[in-house]
């Protein structure tokens, strides 16, 4: 019930990866046959990744994961912009509920004389488009808004943002880590210039990701070295990982409708069952939400206790409660949609995936009401 955190590697993906550990283990940059075979595998993966977002293969750069892709996109564009002679542009627009891999990069850039605007969201987590348009200035060079939120699953109006960016001649980056395989993505139709992908969220291996960079867009590298990936990202190719990501993308594309329908059906069933619990609420958007995301809050209980009690019953979930964060602060996403810290406290995210079953959903539906009840009998805030 925590597929948004990570997913198991699909068996077909593992099978595809295995030869590249010990048989076709050559360095994809080498000129000999071993190297060329590895090179071919990397290029095949590039096509597979491009295929899932309607990009061209030479617009895909392989990275170590979603966070690196976000870092490379935002810093890469920002630093490149700074290098341009005579460029005075220093303004970035982002959204209040972005993943830390975007928000922390923006905060970091603020220390380097970039100005960043954090656009607020409504109670469902949708970005305020009017505000976004209003804050665009002649200095704006980048808009970065996530495709879909990792906590509450809200899908942002990407096509609309893409249009605005294009109209104003501003680059548009989107973190699509949660959206790939669950929402149709077309970088051309949606006017996306840069897009981050993570492998382990789509049944691929951990430690691999990709960044789509539209042809003609130039960025400054973060990792300098041997000049791999057109100089955008030096490092010897992680061939097994890249092959795995490629296969994972191919499977996601082939199974798209089947996977989405499966997750949606289970999600709707789960939400219907859980909302029968007294004083339970659904966070996020009622319709514009990821097909695998359900996010609840329950009055008068705390999310960490709830998750550990569910863990005892073999159920893995997650929470935006302050108590479970390293900083003891409630999730910025839940606060961003206007929840009070005590409301964010009682939050529970349950996310589904390709291998989720109706039996699992029924089991959670059976266990969760009792668990909530047990914690409420302990709570001084529950007087019913």
């Amino acid at each position: 019930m925590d597929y948004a955190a990570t997913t198991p590697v699909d068996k077909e993906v593992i099978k595809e990866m295995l030869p590249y550990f010990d048989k076709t283990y050559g360095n994809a940059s080498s000129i000999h046959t071993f190297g060329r075979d590895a090179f071919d595998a990397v290029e095949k993966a590039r096509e597979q990744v491009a295929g899932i977002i309607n990009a061209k293969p030479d617009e895909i750069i392989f990275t170590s994961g979603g966070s690196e892709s976000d870092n490379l996109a935002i810093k890469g564009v920002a630093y490149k912009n700074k290098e341009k002679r005579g460029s005075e542009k220093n303004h970035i627009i982002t959204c209040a509920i972005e993943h830390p891999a975007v928000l922390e990069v923006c905060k970091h850039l603020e220390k380097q004389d970039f100005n960043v605007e954090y656009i607020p969201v409504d109670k469902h987590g949708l970005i305020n488009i009017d505000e976004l348009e209003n804050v665009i200035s002649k200095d704006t060079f980048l808009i970065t808004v996530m495709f879909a939120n990792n906590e509450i699953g809200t899908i942002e109006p990407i096509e609309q943002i893409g249009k605005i960016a294009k109209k104003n001649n501003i680059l548009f980056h989107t973190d699509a880590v949660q959206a790939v395989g669950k929402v149709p993505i077309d970088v051309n139709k949606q006017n996306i210039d840069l897009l981050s992908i993570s492998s382990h969220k789509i049944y691929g291996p951990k430690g691999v990701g990709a960044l789509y960079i539209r042809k003609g867009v130039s960025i400054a590298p973060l990792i300098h070295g041997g000049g791999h990936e057109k100089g955008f990202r030096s490092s010897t190719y992680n061939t097994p990982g890249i092959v795995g990501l490629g296969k994972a993308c191919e499977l996601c594309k082939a199974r798209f409708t089947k996977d989405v329908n499966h997750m949606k059906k289970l999600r709707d069933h789960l939400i219907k069952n859980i909302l029968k619990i007294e004083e339970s609420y659904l966070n996020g958007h009622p319709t514009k939400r990821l097909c695998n995301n359900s996010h609840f809050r329950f009055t008068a209980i705390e999310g960490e206790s709830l998750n550990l009690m569910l863990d005892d019953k073999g159920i893995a979930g997650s929470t935006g409660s302050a108590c479970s964060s390293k900083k003891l602060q409630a999730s910025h996403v839940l606060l961003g949609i206007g929840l009070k810290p005590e409301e964010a406290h009682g939050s529970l995210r349950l996310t589904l995936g390709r291998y989720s079953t109706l039996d699992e959903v029924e089991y959670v539906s059976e266990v969760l009401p009792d668990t909530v009840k047990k914690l409420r009998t302990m709570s001084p805030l529950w007087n019913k």
Partner: protein
Amino acid sequence: MADFYTEKVMDHFRNPRNMGEIKDADGVGTVGNPQCGDIMTMYIKVKDDRIIDIKFKTFGCTAAIASTSIATEMVKGKTLDEAYKLTRDDVAKELGGLPAIKMHCSNLAADALRKAIDDYKKKRK
């Protein structure tokens, strides 16, 4: 210092001791931590300067629930003076340690108890 929760913490979390309310309590103490939002209430019954019964209710994380649970066990039967001396370190030690970030939870358990004792003393005056 523990990295995650010890078995003892999990035991008190799963099977909290003395959980509930005392309707005709002699002293009641509620404390809350504004930073993380935990709220704990302790109820005590006192006879001859001794805590003869104690119950708690907690809204909070695993550490908060376990801290209050074990604190009630530690002071039940003790004199008010003895109970008043209970510190967060005593509570954490009895639990086999708490993650550093959760130490404030054990602090709150001791605070709630002292507040209940203060309430009892105030009412008696």
